């Protein structure tokens, strides 16, 4: 029973990291990205590289994953931030499909549809005393708290204030000589780099990754986790992620057959999405009413 709760807790925390990182992009840069699972997947494969091939410990791997994810995000962001609205979505969608296609087809490196197995969690001295899941849960909580603390601080820093101005009035910000494009790029890079944490945790927790965990549907789920909470506060993303992880468990608890449960789960999410759009709508994206 404890293992069951720890298992759900671990997934919930991984999802919270994903949602909070993506929340920054949706809320601050006002951009919907359908390519978050691509960064999630890339990070997971880099984690596999770090732990299986290079055998690195926790912190260096995290730094490598964040750096590579951030660099890639930077390369993607330079052309993409010029695009507005739907075009940005399509550019991120294109990135998602390219990454998925490479992960799936570059068999000599990524293992194709077989994926990579045998990713090990780095040895930590007290892992022998208590169960591995519990250690993992602690590390997960620490990372999540660090992340939320950083993002919370970010909101009240100079950078955060400029970002707030960016969503309120981009043109005035341009007029006072701020390079708004630079700020949009940095939001994208920060968001993707911290998704790397979730990738690391996911890959080492599952010990096995394959491309199908990082397809377009995963991207849509990450987006839903952000949106369900209403996007106005960071805690909305946390609640959204928790809900996403708990809903299938609730459906299992009230004993709905597995076959129906998966579809029903998604239908509930779809309906909730419609409801939240209907009641919050423009306010989710800091769009000013004219």
């Amino acid at each position, binding site marked *: 029973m404890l293992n069951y709760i720890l298992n759900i807790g671990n997934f919930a925390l991984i999802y919270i990291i994903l949602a909070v990182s993506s929340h920054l992009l949706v809320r601050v840069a*006002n951009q*919907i990205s359908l390519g978050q699972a691509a960064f999630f997947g890339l990070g997971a494969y880099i984690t596999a590289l770090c732990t299986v091939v290079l055998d690195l410990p926790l912190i260096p791997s995290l730094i490598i994953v964040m750096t590579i994810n951030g660099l890639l995000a930077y390369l993607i962001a330079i*052309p993409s931030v010029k*695009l507005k*609205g*739907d*075009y940005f*979505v*399509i*550019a991120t*969608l*294109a*990135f998602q*499909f*390219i990454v*998925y*296609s*490479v992960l*799936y*087809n570059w068999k000599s490196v990524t293992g194709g549809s077989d994926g990579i197995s045998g990713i090990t969690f780095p040895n930590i001295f007290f892992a022998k005393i208590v169960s591995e899941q519990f250690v993992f849960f602690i590390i997960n909580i620490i990372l999540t708290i660090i992340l939320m603390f950083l993002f919370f601080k970010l909101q009240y820093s100079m950078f955060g204030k400029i970002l707030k101005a960016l969503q309120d009035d981009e043109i005035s910000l341009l007029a006072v000589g701020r390079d708004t494009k630079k700020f949009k790029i940095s939001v994208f890079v920060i968001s993707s780099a911290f998704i790397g944490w979730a990738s690391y945790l996911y890959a080492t927790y599952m010990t096995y990754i394959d491309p199908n965990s990082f397809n*377009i549907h995963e991207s*849509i789920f990450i*987006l*839903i986790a952000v*949106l369900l909470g209403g996007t106005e506060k960071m805690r909305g993303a946390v609640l959204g992620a928790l809900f996403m992880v708990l809903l299938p468990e609730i459906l299992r608890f009230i004993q709905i057959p597995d*076959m*129906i449960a*998966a*579809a*029903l789960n*998604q*239908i509930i*999410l*779809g*309906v909730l*999405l*419609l409801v939240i*759009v*209907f009641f*919050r*709508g*423009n306010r*989710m*994206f800091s*769009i000013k*009413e*004219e």
Partner: protein
Amino acid sequence: MLINYLLNALINGSIIAILAVGFAMVYNTTRIFHIAYAALYTLSGYLFYQFFEITGLPFVIALLLSVLLTSAVSLGCDILIYRPLVKKNMKSHPLMIASIGLLIIINNIIVLIWGNSPKIISQFELLNIGILGIDSNRLLFFIFYLIILSIMYIILKKSHFEIVMRSMRDNINLTSVLGLNVFSYRTRIFIFSGIIVAAVGSLHSFDVGVNTGVGLPVFIYAFIALIIGGIGKFEGPILGGFFIGFLQTMAEYFLSSQWVVLTIFVVLLIFLLYLPSGIIPEKRREL
């Protein structure tokens, strides 16, 4: 061999072109990123499977029923979801999110009704044209797709429908001030786009079968065709559609079928970066 590749390119190209035009009609006039269009494509394939394979109705009647029901669902999306949102003055982002919600709902209702496994429809020769080793069914499909394209061309170009759509695209408030009933045109646009997506979706499911994941890739190709061809005009998506069709087949022929997706998206990125207005750019006066 080569002629079959060519036919493949033409069929894929025309499917993407037709869907791109259908999507462009909705996208240009209502500004909705109508992702649920992908679900309508899947739905029409399953409806055709239901009527033709399970119920055993004749080919034409099954096709008509599938088209009818799909366009009803298409209209339902607009009336039940999009219109209330538009009346609440929602901008394009919330509408897109609503459309993603619709996509998820319709797709999973399909899973609930027909299950997750791919469905194959038993083929028969619709007409026997034994020339050059061409699959005669596929040739017939291609001709049918061409007919759909020309009907769309006639409807859009030879009536005032296209002009109304252009004015809705430019300024929807002005259009309604000038006395055109915008909502009645919206109804027609959603029905019409539903009809064409269903015609293509049903025939293609007869051709290669249907599964729950077919809609989204085809929809994304159609949107890419729209970007590559140019959004404003009727010719743009068609040109873009055939371009994607040929690109797909060429990538299959010269590289390998696993790199098709990658090739198309790399080409899309090149277009987005260097030619964002597409092959046929729209002439617009900047205000």
